[in-house]
């Protein structure tokens, strides 16, 4: 199985350690991973803004980069959601369909495809609050949603509970959106930032030392809110913990 690694633009530029952890983790799990150097973006910012035709160039490039892989893996729920569910600015050729059907968010990939049972190298002696992005939660459905009253399940939790020493804090509103929302974070900055600070405080008050997430975009926003409000909480991508980061 040849895996193409997609590293979203904000991870590339601001959270490279999350990207590195993703790559190293997949390699540790014996996977043949390659990162095509010509990648940019999946097209989501344009698509989410309604400017779908402007997503065409990014989507076409994405397909050029990734059509040759069996599976495409990315440490981002919202980008996966875009590719899987909204990637229609370009004609839907066989290649495009192949890419869309074989794109996975990292947690899904580890949980559903590789079915990883253990992370012997991982140990994290901290209390963490899990932030499920709305993309992973309500679009990719990597965890049960509070609104539906369904039987509780959580793919990220299934993975994290395999990490030695880790403890969990549960916020009062575990699946409330943190307010990032892509361009929403700028066009509706006041509401966005308020949602962010409420979210971070909820985790902090529940006793979390870290907020762990599979989405660095939410983290970028939450971290900015926490730092401005002086809430001493740290942030980490789930790939880093699973890859063996100690702090």
């Amino acid at each position: 199985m040849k895996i193409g690694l997609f590293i979203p633009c904000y991870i590339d530029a601001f959270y490279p350690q999350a990207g590195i952890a993703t790559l190293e983790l997949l390699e540790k799990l014996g996977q043949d991973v390659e990162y095509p150097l010509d990648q940019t973006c999946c097209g989501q910012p344009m698509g989410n803004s309604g400017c779908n035709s402007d997503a065409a160039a990014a989507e076409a490039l994405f397909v050029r980069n990734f059509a040759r892989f069996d599976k495409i893996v990315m440490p981002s729920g919202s980008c996966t959601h875009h590719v899987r569910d909204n990637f229609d600015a370009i004609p839907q050729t066989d290649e495009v369909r192949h890419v869309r059907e074989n794109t996975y968010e990292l947690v899904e990939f580890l949980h559903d495809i590789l079915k990883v049972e253990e992370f012997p190298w991982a140990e994290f002696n901290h209390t963490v609050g899990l932030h499920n992005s709305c993309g992973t939660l309500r679009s990719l459905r990597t965890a049960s949603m509070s609104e539906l009253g369904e039987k509780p399940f959580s793919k990220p939790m299934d993975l994290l509970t395999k990490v030695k020493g880790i403890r969990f804090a549960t916020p009062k509103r575990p699946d409330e959106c943190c307010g990032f929302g892509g361009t929403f974070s700028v066009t509706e900055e006041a509401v966005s930032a308020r949602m962010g600070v409420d979210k971070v405080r909820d985790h902090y008050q529940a006793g979390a030392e870290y907020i762990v997430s599979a989405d660095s975009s939410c983290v970028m926003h939450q971290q900015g809110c926490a730092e401005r409000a002086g809430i001493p909480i740290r942030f980490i991508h789930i790939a880093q913990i699973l890859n063996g980061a100690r702090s």
Partner: protein
Amino acid sequence: MSNRPVNHARAAEKFLEDAPHLQFHDERLWDMRQKRDDQMHMLPEWQELRTEASRIKEHTLARLPEYLERFEENAKKNGIHVHWARDGAEHNRIVGEILQAHNARSLIKSKSMVTEECDMRPYLEKRGVTVTETDLGERIQQLDDQLPSHIVVPAVHKLTSDVARIFAKDYKTDPDIRDPHLLAEAQRQAARPVILHADAGMTGGNFVVAETGTFVVCTNEGNADLSATVPNLHIATIGIERLVPRMADLGVFIRLLSRSALGSPITQYTTHFRGPQKGGEMHVVFVDNGRSARLGMEDFWTSLKCIRCGACMNTCPVYRRSGGLSYGAVYSGPIGAIIDPTFNERKYSTLPYASTLNGSCTNVCPVKINIHEQLYKWRRVLVQHHEMPFVKREIMHMAGKLMGQPKLYRAAISATETALGTLPRFALYNWLNPWGKHRENPHPVKQTFHAWYKANRTDKASKTEDSR
């Protein structure tokens, strides 16, 4: 009506500055969401009910003319007069004429979003009819000259102190009252004489049953029953989408409505209106006001399934932190954001963007309207119809181009490797500036992932470069 786009973001920012109101609003609505969840957990068949409700509504909407005619036929047999209003103006004229024929000068009414849509109160008041809202929250909003901020709890954005201030002005009560019971009693004392002497009563209608020619009104205060039965003349204003085919279908909706809305198993009053009372008259005014056109919109027609429970508002983290009035429209919150643009695309062009697309609204909707997907689709439509502000449109255009050209993109990234850099700076700084207003910027890094990979996975990196 002004066509200027509603500035939701600015109104929300103002709402957020008032901590006590914000906190109450967020917590009160979240509490309603929690109570709704509790009710859901008590019914193992909850998801089946939602599926069934959605199916009944879709079936009915697909055959709306047929069912409307069936209702009319059966309602007439019950002695109900049925009227058809193409839009708000026609509705107001019809109501005005009915009132005039009865020489009615005072109208008491229960909550009805359709009459808000039609802007009926000012129309009637200009013609010498005194209109009194009998729902407590709606009355507060009427006295304060504001639209309802929520479709179920219209004054939820107000605190007890606000109500005391408003009542003090109109009812001459003590402005320092902080006991909600005393305030409710003040409203009761003020409303009862008006109700007892009213010439006509008006209600909405939650559900209209085609096979029986009857309709159902669900309330918690009993005010709709007073409005409908104390005066001899009862006018019900109802949107044409409120139909269900059979009486047997009602159970599904009655079970879902109040559980979704307030988290109570049922409304205190669920009244079936089957015909005029002895010596009285009953009129149903069906209002289209854009609904037929909406029914023809491929991506948006299912918004007509809405039973106006407000669950999407209660769960919406944006709505809870911006308040219903910030939407500047009759319908606020997620459901408002997908139906308001059908009334005025330019004016409400900003509302589908007042969302993070988190999808919680869709999950709580008792009739399974895919609200967040419709928000997404509205954005596409609005851009196609040139309703996006020029600067944002241009930025997306430039960003889209850049994202298609890896070399340029890489150059842009590395040129600003330690700054906020994925877009040309001039655009970025004007438009992304708000990021830092209430948030710190992301931290600069020494090396992008891309650079790290080239340095640390030399074999693979050079292989990729060769294959280019």
